């Protein structure tokens, strides 16, 4: 009698009949039935959802510029839009030779010790902050912001004791809104 019952089953048992309907499986443990399953080290492919651990997705440029969201995450492609991130930085020598930079398309040698830094992407206004240093220890020199425009700024190096313009190695960066 037992043998006859088994042969009458439709395997796998369909979901509609209380079964799983599956013919293959991976991993071990319990079948997921809950709306809030606990998965231990699952390997997910391309997943979609409305939030993850309280986060609703990658911060947009606007999220970064507003800088108030605590439910979006910062991705490398957009972190530079945050007010606290440098919008440009540059290192150039006294020659001047542009050694390395970010968001700088070129530098213009305008006069002795006077260099214009040209931005690849301009600031949205001229109200941005610049920090600059002359990094030649023996030069006794100062760096001034000679001009500040949305697409460029001019940095002048002078000797502290005489005020004479001098070509010197310079490092500089700027913060503001683009």
């Amino acid at each position, binding site marked *: 009698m037992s043998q006859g019952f088994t042969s009458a089953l439709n395997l796998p048992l369909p979901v509609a009949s209380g079964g799983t309907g599956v013919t293959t499986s991976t991993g071990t443990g319990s079948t997921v039935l809950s709306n809030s399953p606990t998965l231990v080290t699952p390997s997910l492919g391309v997943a979609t959802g409305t939030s993850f651990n309280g986060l609703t997705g990658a911060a947009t440029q606007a999220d970064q510029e507003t800088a108030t969201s605590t439910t979006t995450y910062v991705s490398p492609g957009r972190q530079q839009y945050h007010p606290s991130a440098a919008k440009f930085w540059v290192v150039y020598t006294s020659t001047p030779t*542009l050694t390395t930079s970010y968001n700088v398309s070129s530098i213009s*040698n305008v006069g*002795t010790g006077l260099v214009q830094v040209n931005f690849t992407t301009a600031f949205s206004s001229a109200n941005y902050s610049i920090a600059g240093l002359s990094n030649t220890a023996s030069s006794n020199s100062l760096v001034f912001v000679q001009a500040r425009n949305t697409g460029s700024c001019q940095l002048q190096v002078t000797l502290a004791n005489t005020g004479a313009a001098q*070509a010197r190695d310079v490092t500089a960066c700027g913060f503001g809104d683009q």
Partner: protein
Amino acid sequence: MKIAAYEENGVVITVHPAPALFDENSRDRVELAAMGIIFENEEEVYNFIFTKDIPGEKLFITMEDSELPEPAFRNAWEINNNLIIINLDKAKEITHAKRKEIRAEEFKPHDAIIALQIPGNDHNAAEAERVKIREKYAAIQNDINSCPDVNSLKLIYDSLRG
């Protein structure tokens, strides 16, 4: 690296492109690509930079940065026949300014003795030193004025650097 040069108000301005714009994997290039600005070759990068960073309608020349003339006389540069040359008269003015600056430094301690009448100092000796300095730099002044070319002028300029 190729650079561009143009004149504005009688001053030669040189434009030095950023190496990062020639590296297609740099952050700058990735951001430009995101804005739809994509370059097929180096010439397009140079055109992008020079068009953007040289004021409109300005005529400019291009050259290798290794072809730039002596930077000590940077304010004596002129563009002539698609080259940057050094105007010898202007270079002499720069050298004279340097001469006066160095001479003033040498005068300073003797000037203090004479001007302040500091007790215990030999004012006559200070004045004698001033005369020697004046004569030394008068000779240099003549050397500068009679310099026939930039190279010999540069030797004098370097001797003034201390």
